[in-house]
């Protein structure tokens, strides 16, 4: 009792949290959210890749799910895999790819657990065709603090299923789930990189794909390029031919400690962006690439968040309706004015596929994600400024990336909030949820 555990943090390392207990179930029958002796709220924790505090529970307890890493069944004919919630997407790929299956939707890192991916209803570069990961979950098993084990799917307990997909871990503890995989005939991806110089060009490139010629599309933008919004548009499809080889199981490169805070400054960010753009322009031809560098370029470097120093990083990811695309130019203008560089800017057009999740972030429109070195008040003030632009554009922010949005911003982003609240398990909570729902527990 009275223990203080400070070793768990989000990917951005801001904010920090102190937990009073960490439970580490090794088996599904040990996932017992009701067995907690302390009268403190509980939250499941996966691989800690959420940037902000949606994976933290300051003053409460965590249930570290990583030991639940077993694949329970893998139907190689149908491509249906049933896993314990702590299995990572990378671990699923290691089994699936050699047998000709792939994740139907994948975020930009494979180092997330299946339970975490469901709780955040993650999206990927194929959102315009496949929707979110939640669209491909057939069933999940949820342990509630009443001790009930609830099977949820589109037909069984559909309300709880909808609340759990994108439900930020608040509706119960997911202990296993089944995921429908996607057939591939090669581990290679045929990729094209097209440079663009104006925002209008990006929109045109995105719209080109409405015919569905490219399953994966994403834009990288150089936020320091001033008025012109230059960037690189990347598009790809699974190759028809090639070996079904997996990514390497171990990553050799590691950032062993926090780099000094000045590592990423305006100059180095400008240098990186300029070189990256130039390299992209030069290599603008079509080529094939293994899925690993195409989907997960940053997974190559363990602990890459340490490049941002001990203060960490934060990401601002918003979505706005397509008709409000002008908001992005306003956002970039305000960032330029604040003289805070974004190291990585990613832009993507979401499609109309409807996720079963009632609290899912993706919705039709354009999404922009910007990484910033975290500079305390400076960064927080900039983000508040950007919120005004997003609000005016009827946009929304992504909880998985957020360490600071206001309750008002959250309510505006998630109109189903009151309906969702009815499904929240009273024994579960998170730092994020207390912050945005104005609950003090």
């Amino acid at each position, binding site marked *: 009792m009275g223990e203080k555990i400070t070793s768990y943090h989000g990917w951005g390392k801001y904010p920090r949290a102190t937990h009073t207990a960490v439970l*580490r179930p090794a*088996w599904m*029958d040990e996932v017992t959210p009701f067995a907690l002796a302390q009268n403190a709220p509980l939250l499941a924790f996966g691989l800690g890749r959420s940037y902000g505090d949606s994976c933290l529970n300051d003053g409460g307890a965590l249930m570290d799910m990583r*030991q639940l890493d077993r694949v*329970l069944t893998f139907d190689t004919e149908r491509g249906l895999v049933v896993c314990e919630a702590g299995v990572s997407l990378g671990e699923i790929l290691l089994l699936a790819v050699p047998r000709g299956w792939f994740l139907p939707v994948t975020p930009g890192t494979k180092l997330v657990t299946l339970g975490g991916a469901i709780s955040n209803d993650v999206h990927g570069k194929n959102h315009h065709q496949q929707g979110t990961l939640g669209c491909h979950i057939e069933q999940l098993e949820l342990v509630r603090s009443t001790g009930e084990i609830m099977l949820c799917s589109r037909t069984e307990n559909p309300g709880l299923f909808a609340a759990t997909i994108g439900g930020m871990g608040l509706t119960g503890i997911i202990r296993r789930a089944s995921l429908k995989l996607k057939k591939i005939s090669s581990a290679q991806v045929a990729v094209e990189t097209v440079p663009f110089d104006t925002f209008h060009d990006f929109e045109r490139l995105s719209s080109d794909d409405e015919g569905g010629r490219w399953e994966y599309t994403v834009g990288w933008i150089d936020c320091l390029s001033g008025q012109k919004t230059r960037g690189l548009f990347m598009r790809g499809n699974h190759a028809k031919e090639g070996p079904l080889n997996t990514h390497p199981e171990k990553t050799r490169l590691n950032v062993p400690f926090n780099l000094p805070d000045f590592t990423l400054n305006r100059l180095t960010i400008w240098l990186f962006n300029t070189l990256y753009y130039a390299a992209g322009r030069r290599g603008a031809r079509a080529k094939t690439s293994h899925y690993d560098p195409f989907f997960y370029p940053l997974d190559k470097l363990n602990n890459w968040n340490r490049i941002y120093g001990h203060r960490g990083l934060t990401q601002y990811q918003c979505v706005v309706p397509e008709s409000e695309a002008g908001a992005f130019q306003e956002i970039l203008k305000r960032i330029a004015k604040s003289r805070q560089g974004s190291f990585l800017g990613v832009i993507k057009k979401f499609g109309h596929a409807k996720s079963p999740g009632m609290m899912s972030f993706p919705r039709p429109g354009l999404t922009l994600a910007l990484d910033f070195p975290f500079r305390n008040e400076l960064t927080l003030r900039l983000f508040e400024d950007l919120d005004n632009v997003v609000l005016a554009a009827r946009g929304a922010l992504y909880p998985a990336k957020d360490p600071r949005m206001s309750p008002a911003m959250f309510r505006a982003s998630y109109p189903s909030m009151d309906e969702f609240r009815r499904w929240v398990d009273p024994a579960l909570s998170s730092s994020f949820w207390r912050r945005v729902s104005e609950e003090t527990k």
Partner: protein
Amino acid sequence: MGRSGLEFQFLAACIGRNKMTGALVIIGATSKIAFEVGRIAARKGRKLVLVARNKDRLDAVAGDLAARGATGVEVIVAELENTDRHADLWSRIERAAGQIAEVLIAYGSLSEQARSETDTAYMEHEFVVNFNSPASLMNRAAVYFETSAKKAANSRRNGVLAVISSVAGDRGRRSNFTYGTAKGALALFAQGTRARLFSSGVRVLTIKPGPVATPMTASMPGASRMASPQIVAADIYRAMTNGHAEVLYVPGHWRLIMRIVREIPESIAKKLTF
């Protein structure tokens, strides 16, 4: 006409050095170390026979190993401390396995030292789980290997019997000597069984892990600095299927540490509390 039977068996034995023909039997398959050994074997496409007490947990383990590529996974649910049922248990294992290449006995219980000092029934139960029961199953395995060695007189290798003891069994220490006594006795028993099976060409492997980060040790201090079960399992699987090791310390540096610990004079050791 083709090759003579003898020649054919010789060739098969040569190929067999790298490609196991029989099953790997894991008794205590839900222990973390055993499970990770199972994952390595599964990736190599081995046939596995898994024995453990808890059916749901065993099914989860079996599912994972099947998904990872094991060519066949048989599960047997059994209460391992019931030594009077071991004859029946062993015949179920033989039936499930067909031919057995290796046996890994991997279960045990980390005894609470303080409780064992006052609660005799508890102490005896810990001795049964950590010594009587695995020793009894080693005898069953020994009979099996002796019999199959007689049948296949020409084959050069007739199996591996591996058992997980502990560095705790190398010296009676203040903090864990109930556990250590049983594990030390098990190591002695394995040593004797090694002599018994030598003429049958069966290798007996005594495995002595140092502290490994598993659910069994999660409550011990310094759990975060312990060896990873994946690395320990890789050493164990390698030692079981390749080479000639008879006593394996994992990770390897524990061989040196325990040599030093064993050399501490009794007059000093009795004052130590670790």
